[in-house]
């Protein structure tokens, strides 16, 4: 992965001068002239940065803002090198163009906690090149040497102390050659990076003016809801739309691939129309699916060897020879993303163009799909990225199912249309975190040292059939299925990780932290079980197996110290620990739980230490740690999508509960100071929280939770049973 991250880009910085428009800086392709039509912000394909005569600094962000703070982080990278006035910086979404692609996938998309990692240098170069050009232009005007000038707060400061604002020389700068290799600041002279600046998108998010996909407005815009079968992939045998068409406000009822769309003047009419639609469904091949049966089948499969993902020494022989073996099995359910903004997409399809408004994490996929569905060339498809009301991977769906559906409806009615999924549509609409089963074995030698570790994983491949298949499936192993297990850091001489990838046919996809979301639980639960068998303190036991892993040790020690590890706790309380690396960042969490009289647990406090290398914005890092903990804790306590007869049993937040404020633990975040390369931050807090909590439950109760969620939710009710 680091090879991909560090690969040299073939792009070259280019500047463009547009009459009266200041300095534009982008990469590679010549900056095209302003597009015709009246727009408040001119459209510059390929631009990353624009400096106006009014000193306004506009950053075209090639990533989707879904809460992770990228509309602040990317501008900070540019502003650091540019030395501009931070108060004059604003972020706008970039259009779709090759230059905006994520070097990890070759597509313009946001995911895999890659934004800062891939843009850390590239965006700083944009800022540094612009700064150098502005200095040259100002020096020329003043008749001094560029080397005698310095920059600060959006001004070039000349020898003697006079200064010239960037805006005043922006156009002159645009005519100068672009430095091919602009010099970057040393981290020791950073003035913005590493500072807890407030997010640029907060003001619009507190006054209701931030526009999400669902807020898209167009003249004559219609709203459609699509009725889909009770079983994923079911098809329409026949339907009767007489009653639906009679609902006031309904303007059309049309059949598309996946169901029947009711198109109306607004959401409520479409909903009422859909409620009275009569459809005869062919449930199709998934009608027999049941998660209970799948779990049983997966457990059976886990008895036989799978495809090897890692094999150090000879784990089987070492286990056979071990005088003290430990075995455990872990079960994790399908999970929905449950973004708070239900999926939606707006399409305006004309004879020779297609415009799409979507909160998407995958702009290139979105554009190419629309092109193939409409027969238009990709350049005739324009994608407007809105704010995303949560992403968590769902809006990066490899098939952009929510976009496809809207384009299909638009193709039928040829009028601007917004397709909205109800919460129930969203919950039952497929593409879940896979259901996983893991069988683990460990062996000690006579002296009590861990000499063998076997981790066998059973679950669906996410990458198969996607654009990532070639890069992410190697020798029959979907690397995302075993990530975090394959890289288990514990220093054990005989170590085997193998994988079964059954194909029950449920649509699955990445869910915040992807494979780490299950391997984190398995690895960090099992190491705790080994510590218990060894009769050792779980923190010290981990330390002993991580002597060559300084960054793991760093967060482990920091979290343990800050949490007061080793203190004696009152009865009914327990403390658990978990440490995990993902996306190039290291996280340790210590969770405190209290057993409540009703048998449930309360997570009181989580101390979280993170080493994500050099930091861009510690306030955003803290927020992502808190958020990842809430997201992971929601899943750990409650999250489960279950199937009976192919039907998803959950449909809303009553039977797919998520953490609420009254259950929020007090989260303390401690960031390790580091000069290492930046790591990802959006996902990395998720994997350790489930095992930290279940290990704490063990400490409090002596019972191991090996099946998630911790509570068994009865469909349709709030009744809970502790799954221990």
């Amino acid at each position: 992965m680091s090879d991909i991250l560090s690969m040299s880009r073939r792009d070259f910085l280019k500047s463009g001068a547009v009459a009266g428009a200041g300095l534009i800086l982008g990469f590679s392709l010549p900056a095209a002239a302003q597009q015709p039509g009246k727009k408040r912000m001119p459209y510059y394909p390929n631009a990353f940065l624009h400096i106006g005569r009014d000193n306004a600094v506009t950053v075209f962000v090639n990533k989707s803002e879904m809460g992770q703070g990228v509309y602040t982080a990317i501008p900070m990278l540019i502003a650091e090198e540019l030395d501009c006035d931070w108060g004059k910086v604003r972020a706008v979404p970039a259009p779709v163009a090759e230059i905006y692609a994520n070097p990890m996938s070759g597509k313009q998309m946001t995911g895999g906690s890659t934004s800062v990692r891939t843009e850390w240098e590239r965006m700083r170069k944009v800022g540094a090149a612009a700064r150098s050009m502005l200095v040259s232009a100002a020096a020329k005007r003043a008749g001094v040497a560029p080397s005698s000038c310095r920059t600060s707060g959006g001004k070039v400061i000349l020898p003697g102390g006079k200064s010239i604002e960037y805006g005043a020389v922006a156009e002159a700068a645009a005519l100068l050659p672009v430095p091919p290799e602009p010099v970057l600041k040393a981290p020791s002279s950073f003035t913005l990076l590493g500072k807890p600046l407030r997010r640029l998108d907060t003001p619009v998010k507190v006054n209701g003016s931030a526009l999400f996909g669902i807020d898209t407005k167009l003249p004559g815009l219609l709203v459609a809801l699509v009725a889909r079968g009770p079983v994923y992939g079911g098809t329409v045998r026949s339907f009767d739309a007489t009653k639906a068409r009679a609902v006031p406000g309904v303007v059309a009822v049309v059949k598309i691939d996946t169901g029947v769309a009711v198109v109306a003047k607004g959401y409520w009419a479409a909903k009422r129309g859909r409620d009275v639609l009569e459809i005869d469904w062919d449930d199709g091949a998934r009608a027999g699916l049941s998660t209970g049966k799948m779990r049983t089948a997966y457990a059976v499969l886990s008895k036989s060897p799978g495809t090897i993902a890692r094999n150090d020494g000879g784990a089987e022989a070492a286990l056979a020879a071990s005088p003290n073996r430990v075995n455990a099995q872990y079960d994790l359910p399908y999970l929905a993303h449950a973004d708070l903004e239900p999926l939606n997409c707006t399409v305006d399809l004309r004879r020779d163009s297609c415009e799409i408004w979507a909160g998407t994490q995958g702009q290139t996929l979105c554009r190419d799909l629309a092109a193939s569905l409409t027969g238009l060339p990709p350049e005739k498809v324009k994608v407007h990225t809105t704010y995303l009301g949560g992403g968590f991977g769902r809006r990066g769906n490899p098939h952009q199912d929510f976009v496809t559906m809207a384009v299909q409806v638009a193709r039928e009615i040829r009028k601007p249309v917004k397709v909205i999924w109800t919460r129930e549509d969203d919950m039952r609409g497929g593409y879940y975190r896979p259901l996983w089963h893991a069988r683990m074995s460990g062996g000690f030698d006579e002296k009590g040292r861990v000499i063998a570790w076997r981790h066998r994983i059973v679950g669906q491949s996410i990458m198969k059939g996607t654009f990532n298949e070639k890069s992410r499936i190697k020798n029959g192993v979907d690397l995302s299925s075993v990530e975090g297990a394959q890289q288990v850091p514990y220093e054990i001489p005989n170590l085997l990780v193998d994988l079964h990838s059954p194909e029950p046919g449920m649509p699955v996809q990445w869910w915040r932290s992807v494979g780490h979301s299950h391997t984190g639980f398995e690895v960090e639960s099992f190491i705790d079980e080994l510590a218990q068998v060894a009769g050792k303190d779980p923190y010290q036991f981990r330390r002993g197996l991580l002597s060559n892993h300084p960054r793991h040790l760093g967060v482990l020690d920091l979290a343990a110290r800050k949490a007061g590890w080793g203190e004696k706790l009152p009865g009914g309380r327990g403390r658990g620990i978990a440490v995990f690396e993902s996306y190039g960042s290291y996280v340790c969490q210590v969770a405190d739980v209290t057993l409540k009289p009703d048998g449930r647990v309360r997570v009181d406090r989580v101390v979280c230490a993170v080493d994500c290398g050099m930091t861009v914005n510690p306030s955003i890092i803290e927020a992502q740690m808190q958020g990842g903990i809430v997201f992971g804790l929601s899943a750990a306590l409650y999250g489960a999508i279950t199937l009976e007869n192919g039907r998803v049993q959950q449909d809303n937040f009553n039977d797919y509960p998520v953490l609420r404020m009254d259950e929020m633990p007090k989260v303390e975040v401690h960031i390790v100071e580091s000069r290492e390369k930046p790591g990802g931050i959006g996902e990395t807090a998720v994997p350790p929280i489930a095992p930290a909590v279940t290990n704490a439950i063990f400490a409090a109760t002596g019972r191991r939770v090996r099946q998630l969620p911790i509570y068994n939710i009865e469909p349709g009710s709030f009744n809970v049973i502790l799954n221990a």
Partner: protein
Amino acid sequence: MIPIKVNGKAYELDVPADMPLLWVIRDELGLTGTKYGCGSALCGACTVHVDGRAVRSCVTPVSAVAGKEVVTIEGLSSPGMHPVQQAWIEEDVPQCGYCQPGQIMSAVALLAVNPHPSDADIEQAMAGNICRCGTYQRIKGAIHRAAGKVAAEPGRPAGRKP
């Protein structure tokens, strides 16, 4: 025709009596700050004030608010100047931001009747508002920061229990 008053402006609307207030606000009046999240009063994203009380507009039929005073996030103040919105900015609360208008409306309603809420009061009052991004800790901080700065809205004297 149903008469309603939203953000101080009077409307006569020709809509079905059972149409949820949420869709009247969003689709008929074009005020999109109030969000759809669940349609079942489970998430709080659609929270608005009716005569100063926080209600879930997704399950409130428009006929039930005829003649009443409705306030949405857009009508809370000149943009972003309400003390609670200011506190949200100072604590840098939002992540994706989708739930925040509902969170803010719930918080304002809480502070109007309980100017200095305890942690437990906040947890109880805000438990109906889901944030999938997990901004709860900062929301709590922002409510404490705004404590004592919220005046009652028309139709609801301050200090009166819900």
